[in-house]
């Protein structure tokens, strides 16, 4: 009951003109990012952080969160209309969405995707409302040992699932940890690896790192492989036939549950629930042979799942302060920049801000339905912007953003260096997500570990004597063990890709 009252208060805050405006901007940019191939929500969020400096914290987070879940809607449009996923989670939508478009039923595919996305997104935010506060209350019992163990689980899950090789995942994770050590030691206050440079005393900036590793590297790779978008077909009629409503809603229901549960697991990303949902729909269908030829459930299920994933993926961030994906890691950076500390105390110390953000997500999902379905043709035209024009525009925005974040050209140089590094890492198939996640968590990890050691007078084995931390550490060991086993047996065919970039 208290949550409902706080949520209503949050709506009052979120429905202010300023917050509504920024919510609209966020979902609009998210749609744009989703429609445009080559630009992912991580890069877009990092690019917009400099623009949020002058905003109120709640408005800034509302806008940046809007980019995240808005991009899931946008990616559907180009998947259906021109068989080009604008965003990685919409890859699966191409399988049945494009055949539907070729049958003259593009509008129906987009319509059911929009409805499913809205239902999935709204249900997952509802889950955040119901689960968030009790989980945050539970997490208040966490001390440094429990936080350390939780972060280890998050990182191991990420490394274990990431890419095709545990070794590459671990290498990326430790590169990120190494980068996090640059700057002032959080416990002893000693400068480390700064080479006497004052700019490095506060460490590397997350936004510069993200823009470089993901944005600049994507521009470099994109300009190597320029492609042309084909002309999208016309859209007529957006609602399914009477007999299709039942199976579609069942697919939406299953997709919502699947997406929500997977979103709770750190280290996953939006493509996993989409793929799993498609597999489930194909398995439970009366006639699986329809899949791949225009089965509406093949669009409804995955699109619902990837949107349901988004709301759930914010739960670890809001309640535990643990980002579960690179985009959320950048959003975490935004929280910190605006003086907010995500985690269990956020609900108790800043309830008005948290609930306003949650309420804005309901509003944002509603805005997206109205922007998505009737305006699909317009969005599809945007996808036809030539990449040879788009990438230089993004480069210019990134450079300005980097200058703004650091206040000098040093930041631009840092972004460029990491851009080149990201380019080579991508070419070598080394995942970038572990780098950014361990970079974000590195200082927290070090602080909680050192605090734990001080608590235990230097005896790290005592971590295994605290019930919550021992359970979490055993889970981490099991996940790592299974991942290495799978790697050794070469059963890893596809892993989680760097798909949010």
């Amino acid at each position, binding site marked *: 009951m208290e949550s409902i009252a706080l949520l209503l208060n949050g709506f009052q805050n979120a429905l202010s003109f300023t917050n509504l405006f920024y919510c609209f901007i966020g979902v609009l940019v998210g749609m744009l990012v989703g429609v445009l191939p080559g630009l992912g929500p991580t890069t877009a969020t990092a690019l917009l952080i*400099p*623009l949020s*400096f*002058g905003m109120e914290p709640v408005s800034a987070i509302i806008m940046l969160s809007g980019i995240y879940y808005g991009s899931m809607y946008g990616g559907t449009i180009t998947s259906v209309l021109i068989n080009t996923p604008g965003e990685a989670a919409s890859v699966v939508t191409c399988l049945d969405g494009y055949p539907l478009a070729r049958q003259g039923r593009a509008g129906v595919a987009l319509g059911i995707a929009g409805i499913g996305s809205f239902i999935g997104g709204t249900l997952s935010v509802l889950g955040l409302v119901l689960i968030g506060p009790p989980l945050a209350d539970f997490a208040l019992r966490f001390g440094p040992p429990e936080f350390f163990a939780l972060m280890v689980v998050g990182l191991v899950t990420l490394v274990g699932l990431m890419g095709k090789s545990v*070794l*590459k995942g*671990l*290498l990326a994770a*430790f*590169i990120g*940890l*190494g980068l996090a*050590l640059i700057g002032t*030691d959080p*416990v*002893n206050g*000693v400068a*480390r*690896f700064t080479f006497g440079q004052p700019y490095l005393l506060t460490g590397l900036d997350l936004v510069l790192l993200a823009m470089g590793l993901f944005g*600049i590297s994507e*521009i*470099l790779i994109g*300009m*190597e*492989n320029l492609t042309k978008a084909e002309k999208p077909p016309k859209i007529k009629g957006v609602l399914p036939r009477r007999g299709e409503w039942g199976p579609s809603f069942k697919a939406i229901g299953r997709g919502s549950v699947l997406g929500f549960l997977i979103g709770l697991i750190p280290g996953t990303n939006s493509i996993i629930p989409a793929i799993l949902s498609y597999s489930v729909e194909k398995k439970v269908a009366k006639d699986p042979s329809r899949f791949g030829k225009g089965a509406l459930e093949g669009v409804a299920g995955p699109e619902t799942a990837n949107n349901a994933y988004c709301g759930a993926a914010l739960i670890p961030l809001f309640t535990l302060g643990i980002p579960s994906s690179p985009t959320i890691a950048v959003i975490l950076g935004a929280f910190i920049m605006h003086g907010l500390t995500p985690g269990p105390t956020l609900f108790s110390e800043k309830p008005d801000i948290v609930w306003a953000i949650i309420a804005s997500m309901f509003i944002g999902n509603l805005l997206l339905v109205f922007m998505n379905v009737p305006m699909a043709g317009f969005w599809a035209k945007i996808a036809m912007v030539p990449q*040879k*024009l788009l*990438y*230089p*525009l993004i*480069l*210019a*925005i990134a*450079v*300005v953003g980097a*200058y*703004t974040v650091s206040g000098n*050209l040093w930041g*631009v*140089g840092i972004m*460029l260096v990491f851009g*080149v590094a990201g*380019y*080579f890492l991508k*070419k*070598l198939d*080394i995942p970038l997500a572990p780098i950014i996640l361990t970079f974000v968590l590195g200082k927290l990890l*070090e602080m909680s*570990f*050192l605090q734990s*050691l*001080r608590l235990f007078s*230097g005896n790290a084995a005592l971590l295994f004597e605290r019930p919550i931390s021992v359970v979490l550490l055993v889970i981490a060991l099991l996940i790592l063990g299974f991942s290495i086993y799978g790697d050794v047996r070469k059963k890893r065919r596809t892993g989680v890709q760097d798909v949010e970039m």
Partner: protein
Amino acid sequence: MKPQPAPLLFGLAVFILAAGMFAMSLSMDYYTRTGPGPGFFPLWVSGILGVLSILYMIVGWREKLEAGVLPKGKHALYAVSILAGVLLFMVLANWIGFLLSCAVMTFVVLCFHYRLWVAALISLAVAAILQTVFELVLSIPLPDGIFG
């Protein structure tokens, strides 16, 4: 496919970085009176990173890359134009100001894909729009230079 040297070179680069970090960590306190010192975490992280980089070099040497890591031909030119554009911006920004330096950067990237006058026009428009948005709308200062 022949083994590619790129993974080996990358592994070696990471190993050198890890070794450097490890050496610098040795000069910091590993332990203090109150507990682990500033050198504790860096020593372990750089040590593990060094081991991982050696493993990667061993495993990565045989990695079959679908294509070479470095671009060739016109693709190399496009990539170099991006790097050159940003470097030019960094050199010129504090001298000639944001508007012109951003225009130069964008022009260097666009000139291989559009006619020169079209590339110049687009570059100036992009720089002007960005300057308007950041300086006038958001009140975020950009490099002034002698031209502003």
